[in-house]
């Protein structure tokens, strides 16, 4: 595996340092510079439709956001100093109940202020996605308490 940023969570680990990721059971499956695969195990509390037992779209939003963020972090060596600017998700099909959801994300461009990533959420076959996303992240946002990160890009 290529060198990943300091304190990078190793493959297989639960993202225990991020409370919401831990609450979702979000694990890193594999990681290399700029490319990450994560998994969220199926769980009853993540169901969005009690009739069909399909996972809520919000879980996929959180999974894609976090996976893209880790991909950006692994390429820019910034951790905790990036903020999502915008995230666009296309939902291709409903997730199959009782199966885990995986996400692969790639950070494909980094500029002085902004990083761009794209991702795909799937269950068994990456070529048959549940959802795809495109995201932009602001780099070098403040990471000290009490100082709000600026949400506007371009400076």
């Amino acid at each position, binding site marked *: 595996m290529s060198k990943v940023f300091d304190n990078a969570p190793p493959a297989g680990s639960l993202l225990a340092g991020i409370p919401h990721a831990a609450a979702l059971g979000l694990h890193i499956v594999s990681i290399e510079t700029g490319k990450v695969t994560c998994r969220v195990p199926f769980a009853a509390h993540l169901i969005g439709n*009690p009739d069909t037992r399909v996972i809520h779209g919000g879980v996929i939003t959180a999974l894609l956001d976090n996976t893209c963020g880790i991909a950006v972090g692994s390429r820019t060596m910034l951790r905790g100093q990036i903020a999502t600017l915008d995230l*666009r998700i296309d939902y291709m099909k409903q997730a199959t109940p009782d199966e885990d959801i995986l996400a692969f994300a790639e950070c494909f461009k980094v500029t002085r202020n902004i990083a761009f990533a794209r991702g795909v959420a799937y269950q068994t076959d990456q070529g048959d996605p549940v959802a795809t996303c495109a995201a932009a992240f602001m780099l070098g946002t403040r990471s000290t308490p009490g100082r709000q990160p600026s949400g506007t890009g371009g400076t």
Partner: protein
Amino acid sequence: MDILRRAIAEGRKPDLRELVEAIPYCRFLGVETDLKGNELTTILRFSDRLIGNPVLPALHGGVVGAFLEITAVIQLMLETESEELPKPVDIGIDYLRSGRPVDTYARATVTKHGRRVCNVRAEAWQEDHARPIAALHGHFLIKPIEPKTGQSDE
């Protein structure tokens, strides 16, 4: 969903509290609804497990996005007669400010009400409505029921 079918059969709007309680993921996030007349505000009660950046601390971006999506869906439930929950087709979320570790509120508007697809906008804020933390726009697939004659008073 049974709650929606019952509401339609009885010719009333669905009970939103019952609806939110029936969706496990809404309970997990801590989503509540506040309906005043026809104005719906959703509330995301803060809890530690919603944190995405423990240093700031800030809400997880996925949580804020999910909350806006839920708000859009509940608003659609109020405005359409449907037995099924609307399905998201695509959503775009603009993150405007970091979400602080406090309660968050949101409102949604149905911008375009099509026969099969609706366009919805939603906005989330915390202490100050004029300083939103995030905004969503999205398309949702709906499955309306055929209106029965003599049931609507419109």
